[in-house]
């Protein structure tokens, strides 16, 4: 593929992460290229969020080197968009949808900020892209999980990032809402040529959209196409214990391990 000649967006080289005496990641190496849509899978507590925090510069590796967009990771990098999992916000919080999205644009600048037309236009453009313009003035606490998730994505996209990190955006969403988010993210990925790393628990809704999978388990990582990685063989090696992958009805089910 042509993109392999460009500098990779992410390079991890023999990364170790040890926190509080526990080895969270052990000898992890992988490369991610521009415009790739990658799902990060694995059991709870395996280190998926740790991987994201490494890329955001929120934690430092104990050993090994990371390069994100050609440089060491650092906080406040506007070339990385980060969309966390939506939370239950209090219903009576005095913040509108467009206020929340606006944080992505200049929430990190000092001072109160003055309203100006260019800023409003940029925010509305972002809201339009995630199909949230029709509830731009609604208080966020009254929006559904799917709607809030779309706001967080818009917030992450406002600085035109080249890498988008999403921490469990599909959790607590019903199937149709989750599918909407996946379609949205896939569209963003392809039209903007943004590399997307999406942490999820269930790979099935994502199978048609993603290019590769990063499976994190037992402190180890495996990266590759879904059909290569999500196999009984590969996963058993990763977990260090017998794991069975069942293919049924066009879906993949991981059996024998905590997913």
């Amino acid at each position, binding site marked *: 593929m042509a993109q392999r000649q460009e500098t990779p967006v992410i390079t991890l080289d023999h990364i170790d992460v040890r926190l509080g005496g526990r080895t969270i990641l052990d000898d992890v190496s992988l490369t991610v290229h521009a415009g790739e849509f990658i799902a990060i899978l694995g059991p709870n507590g395996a280190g998926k969020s740790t991987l994201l925090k490494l890329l955001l510069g929120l934690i430092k590796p104990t050993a090994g080197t990371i390069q994100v967009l050609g440089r060491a990771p650092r906080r406040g990098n506007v070339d990385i968009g980060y969309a*966390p999992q939506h939370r239950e916000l209090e219903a*009576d919080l005095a913040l509108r949808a467009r206020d929340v999205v606006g944080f992505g644009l200049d*929430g990190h600048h000092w*001072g109160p900020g003055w309203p100006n037309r260019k800023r409003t236009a940029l925010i509305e453009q972002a809201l339009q892209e995630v199909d949230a313009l029709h509830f731009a003035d609604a208080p966020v606490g009254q929006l559904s999980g799917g709607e809030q998730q779309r706001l967080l994505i818009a917030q992450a996209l406002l600085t035109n990032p080249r890498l988008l990190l999403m921490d469990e955006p599909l959790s607590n969403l019903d199937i149709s809402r989750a599918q909407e988010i996946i379609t949205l993210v896939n569209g963003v990925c392809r039209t903007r040529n943004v590399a997307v790393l999406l942490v999820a628990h269930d790979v099935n809704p994502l199978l048609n959209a993603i290019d590769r999978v990063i499976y994190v388990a037992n402190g180890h990582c495996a990266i590759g196409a879904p059909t290569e990685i999500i196999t009984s063989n590969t996963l058993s090696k990763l977990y260090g214990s017998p794991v069975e992958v069942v293919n049924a009805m066009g879906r993949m089910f991981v059996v024998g391990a905590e997913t």
Partner: protein
Amino acid sequence: MLQAFQEFWLYFPLLQNTLLAGSIIAIVAALMGYFLIMRGLTFAGHALPYVGFAGAAGAVLLGIDPVFGLFAFTLAGGVGIGFLGKEAHARDITIGILMTFALGLGLMFFALYSGYAELVYSYLFGTILGISQQDVLVTAVCSLIAVAALIVMFRPLLFSTMDPIVASSRGIPVYALSIIFMALVAIAVAMSIQIVGTLLVFTLLVGPAATAIRIANRPLWAIILAVFLGLLYTWLGIFLAVVLFNGTLPVSFFIATISFSVYLPIRLLSPLWIGRGIRRQRNQEQQVEIEFEHLKARECVAVEVKQESFK
């Protein structure tokens, strides 16, 4: 009523300092209170005055200027709460225990000082009717600094209030901001205690802002409304206390009662407008779903009828 207003006008020169100091504090308290509520720290706003009270009492016992003890303890308490971090449940228990300890400590200090009920009274209820011009000046300067700092921190503070992790990933010093914020709250509280007393500080901090947040839906309007309400309550309270009751009842009582009387109906009625837009939209969506189901059902019946007729 008209006579009361005329009386108020006569009193005005004497009340100038009172109104000035009260207004400044109402504005600062409303601004701090907005952020306290947004950050879920109202309990801290309740505890800090008592910590300050203990500091003032301890200073009196040691023979030092009570203002020094007041500021020292309140700042220490505020910064300490800032260090406790965001774990709400455990944090509130810790604050509650410290608060009751501080109150008991304060009472003990005053008891050890062999009485001086007047001093206790002035720190619990404030001396708003006996404010000097110097007091007004000090209040104004402290407030200006606190409000200026808050304005500079406005966007990062609001962002880190809403989502500390994303804010942190954007390079905002979330932890440092929360500590600085608590220090500013502590200064505002310590300053306010001298004017309106320990018991009233919380009312001015939380009452107007809590009411405003229920009515407005964006930060700027919520803050403007909170400031307006704070000023209204303060002026009305002073008016009622001085003109209608000749200063026999504490101003604090009137301000607190007005604040409560406004908040309660708004709190009870707010479901009428909060969430109405989104509920309307959900009902419309449900309506579409129901119609869709009916349509499908009719199609199924039509198909079955066709199949039957072919038999």
